[in-house]
């Protein structure tokens, strides 16, 4: 009985550890005198066929086609006792001839495995949990969405804040009132130490806070989902703020114009299943990323502009899943303003993007085996040699094993 309880507890903890998908499919092992320890290994792959109507050939106006792995990961999840869980995930970054949101490349950016996540998590109480290591920082709901459970083909293309999706640091978080309220606070690495090409005033930590209120079923985990496939009724409203002092110079050559980073976001998510009618999902979020107008400087730090620099915008998504067939239709719209969307060498001040997408998911085995189609249009307000409007069609097969 004791052993059974330990195994059940371990399984539960490992399940809680799965920020990125259900993934109970992988092999498990238990260890320890009373089987307090548990390890599970999962594979997570998203293989894509992408076709875009420009991006290659003379003047980059030729059609571009690519097969690639959007994600290609091995995840190791562990638990010991009733307080500690471990989540380690590696990723093989594939050669993506076409990568989101609009990059086209014929090189092979990385052929190495990287450690994507390495999180040590301590569950002292439902209202007080601590995570340390490399993990998703607490800012946008979209970034915290599990990578394998987006409503649309992928998460929002432009809402990513300045750092990558993960960062090193420590987070404290928890739930109150049976999960109706959730709080999060983290201290993360932020920008790393200075480099010769773009010196920065100093290397500081990045501080973030986030909270949400769930008015129907609670969302108590660290990770969110883009759809619960009609298994929950959710109405959650959230918001977050990030700050990092002295993060960039407006003039990196003269080393003047020190700027701080601020970012805030607000989001709402709704999903409601109705028997015989189906499941409706809708969400939207707004984000503002600010580097104190560093982009106006004489030689601004590249971190302060571009795709993940100073910008603001929002997305809205909606989905509908049939009641008796695992088929889900979705649509997405995004609207963003960038201080300077300089992708390579061409300045594009006050560039605006309208992005439209629609498609469908077919769930053979829930998220463990899923086929997705999405057609999208990217519309730049001011086209230039580096930013040209395009249409894209992607077919993606997801397997979690």
């Amino acid at each position, binding site marked *: 009985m004791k052993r059974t309880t330990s195994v059940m507890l371990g399984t539960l903890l490992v399940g809680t550890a799965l920020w990125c998908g259900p993934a109970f499919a992988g092999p498990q092992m238990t260890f320890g005198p009373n089987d307090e320890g548990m390890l599970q290994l999962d594979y997570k792959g998203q293989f894509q066929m992408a076709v875009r109507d420009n991006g290659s050939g003379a003047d980059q106006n030729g059609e571009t086609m690519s097969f690639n792995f959007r994600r290609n990961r091995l995840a190791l999840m562990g638990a010991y006792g009733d307080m500690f869980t471990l989540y380690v995930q590696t990723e093989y970054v594939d050669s993506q001839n076409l990568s989101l949101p609009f990059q086209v490349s014929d090189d092979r950016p990385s052929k190495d495995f990287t450690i994507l996540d390495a999180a040590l998590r301590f569950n002292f109480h439902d209202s007080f949990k601590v995570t340390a290591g490399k993990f998703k920082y607490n800012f946008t709901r979209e970034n915290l969405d599990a990578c394998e459970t987006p409503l649309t083909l992928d998460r929002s293309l432009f809402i990513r804040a300045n750092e990558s999706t993960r960062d090193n640091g420590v987070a404290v978080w928890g739930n109150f009132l049976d999960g109706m309220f959730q709080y999060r606070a983290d201290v993360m690495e932020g920008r790393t130490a200075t480099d010769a090409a773009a010196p920065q005033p100093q290397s500081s930590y990045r501080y973030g806070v986030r909270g949400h209120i769930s008015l129907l079923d609670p969302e108590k985990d660290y990770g969110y989902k883009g759809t619960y496939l009609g298994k929950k009724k959710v109405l959650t409203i959230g918001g977050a703020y990030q700050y990092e002092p002295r993060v960039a110079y407006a003039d990196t050559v003269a080393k003047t114009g020190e700027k701080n980073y601020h970012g805030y976001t607000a989001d709402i998510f709704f999903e409601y299943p109705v028997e015989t009618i189906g499941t409706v999902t809708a969400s939207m979020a707004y984000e503002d990323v600010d580097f104190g107008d560093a982009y106006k400087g004489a030689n601004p730090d590249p971190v302060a502009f571009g795709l993940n620099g100073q910008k603001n915008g929002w997305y809205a998504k909606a989905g509908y899943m049939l009641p008796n067939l695992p088929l889900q239709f979705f649509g997405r719209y995004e609207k963003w303003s960038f201080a300077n969307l300089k992708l390579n060498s061409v300045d594009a001040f006050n560039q*605006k993007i309208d992005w439209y997408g629609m498609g469908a998911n077919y769930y053979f085995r829930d998220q463990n085996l899923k086929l997705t189609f999405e057609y999208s249009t990217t519309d730049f307000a001011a086209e230039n040699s580096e930013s040209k409007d395009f249409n894209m069609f992607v077919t993606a097969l997801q397997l979690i094993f």
Partner: protein
Amino acid sequence: MLERPKKRFGAVTATLFGMLAILSLAMWGCGTSGYDNPNAGITTTQTPTALIEAATLKQWLDEGKVNNQDPATRDKVVVLEVTTSAAYATSHIPGALLMNSSGELTMTRMEGVAPMTTMILDGTTMDTLIKRSGINGNTTVVFTVNKGGSWLNIARAYFTFRYWGFPKERLKVLNGGDNAWEDAGFTLDAVTPTVAASTYSVRNNAAMQTDMRYSIGQMIKLVDDINLGTVTTAATGVSILDVRGAPLPTTYVANATVDDFAQYGDAVAGGKTTRFKSVADLTTRLTTMGVTSAKSRTYVYCVSGMRASVPFFVLDGVMGWPVTMYDGSWGQWSAYTTANAVSTAWRIDTNTSGTTLPRTTGTPSGTLTLDPASNFMYTSITDPRANQILNDDVNYFTSGTVTTTSSGGSSGGSSSGC
């Protein structure tokens, strides 16, 4: 988990419509906050071509843009007088700074199997010039030359800055140099302005324009490719222009069209600096030489890269067509011969391998000082190690260091060069 439809359908529908209403309002009513364009007030980058007249520069001078010391300005102008220090000291456009034609136009550098005295400036020399002149990423550089000075100087300076990554809209050539300034009724002076040095480096530019300069190995390969039929000189293919000028040569790089650099300018009476022709006349001249906007690229050379700077500037700065300078030019090409014991692969007095087509039309007879180690080591024209200047410059651009294969010191590019 699924709800009974009759029981909850009304509430769900109301919530859904509420969400849709919010989304619709957001989509149609709410946009995003825009941003200022800090470049909106810049005028010096807005000239139709890189060729400007004296009145334009005078306007910029009157607007306080020349040597503007405000660190926040994005529309600074630096005037570089490309001449000798003696000529500069005599008179120059007010505010102009010296770009010394003896040492800051060409220098001796190793390339292929021998050093050459007339090659592009290295990164260290460029940075010294840039910093001393207060040039930064928001500076528009105007090249001029002393009264009676050579228009080749300003064209060569333009090519040098373009190669090192300065954007075209930030580089201008004053048509007619100081003579044109004076003829427009403006005065020259002999005051050497004091300007604050900048910390800018060519490394701060977005990218080098490495495709604007060819080495000896690249040029031989181009000729081989044309001879082999893998590159065409048809209407949409490439052109090679030999612009050494009168008397027109009968020995030249195979597949080249013999042109005359002087045809791109109008001589001015009284020994004044030559002026570039009008766009219409330049178009006519180029068309006569078989060069049109349809060409994928035009390769230009002369004797030392000075005269070829004229059509380089015309094609890049005025016409906006793709152009590459073969920097070693005839001085380098004509010396890669059997008589000079250049290793077999590099010889230009032979046929392209596998063809009966020569690499050179006529019999070349140049001279060089072989680098024995390079001549022994580099047995292929495509050996990347033999592209020493490109390697050194890219290395400097990316890392700030020089592994150097440069040879010797500076060699003055004379104003009557080529």
